[in-house]
């Protein structure tokens, strides 16, 4: 299935891209992140557990895991700092 992935702020800069479409068999958010990291650098570090990383699924913040379905929008970014 196809997942639309967006990257913001420091994660976007580390990866040198703001979005991509990704074909995957992974059915969970945790599985997807692991698969993206396994592409090697810069994903390995940018999506690694060394730095605080937040995720959203279909534009809602997710803490922990969630199920994925075809066409979902996933986003990775650092903790937010607005206001």
């Amino acid at each position, binding site marked *: 299935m196809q997942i639309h992935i*967006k990257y913001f702020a420091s994660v976007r800069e580390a990866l040198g891209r703001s979005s991509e479409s990704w074909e995957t068999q992974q059915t969970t958010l945790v599985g997807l992140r692991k698969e993206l990291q396994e592409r090697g650098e810069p994903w390995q570090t940018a999506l690694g557990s060394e730095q605080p990383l937040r995720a959203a699924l279909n*534009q809602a913040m997710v803490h922990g895991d969630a199920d994925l379905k075809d066409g979902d929008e996933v986003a990775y970014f650092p903790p*937010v*700092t*607005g*206001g």
Partner: protein
Amino acid sequence: MQTNIRIQTQDFDVSTELASLRAGERRAGAVCCFVGTVREMGTGQAVLGMELEHYPGMTERAIADMAKLASERFEVLGATVIHRIGPLLPEDQIVLVAVTSPHRRDAFQACEFLMDYLKTQAPFWKKEATASGSQWVDARESDDEALQRWGVQARNAS
């Protein structure tokens, strides 16, 4: 509750926004507003400017969610939330949260709740420029704690 949510690069005029928020609302006996501005971060280095990034779509959704939560907790008649994005300079206005209510207590509390929520739940990111380069601002645990005072888990900085 009437809500006006705007994400924009241009500046805003507080008087104009408050007049617009209050217009035609005769039940309102209290207006409370908060304006966040670009400041020195106390790192010893002058902040030359700032760049604000956000997640279009999710931002508006997060702010609409927080306005709904505020209206469930407090007696709020109307709310305006404006957040600027793009390049900003020292002393510039960044964010406006304004609410109307029949009474001051609800107005004060709703305004503070909305800001505490926005700080840790709305997808904005600040990048500061100083003479030695630009860097992303770190999230603060004290902002998580501010939201937790309202009984809402922030889970942003930590």
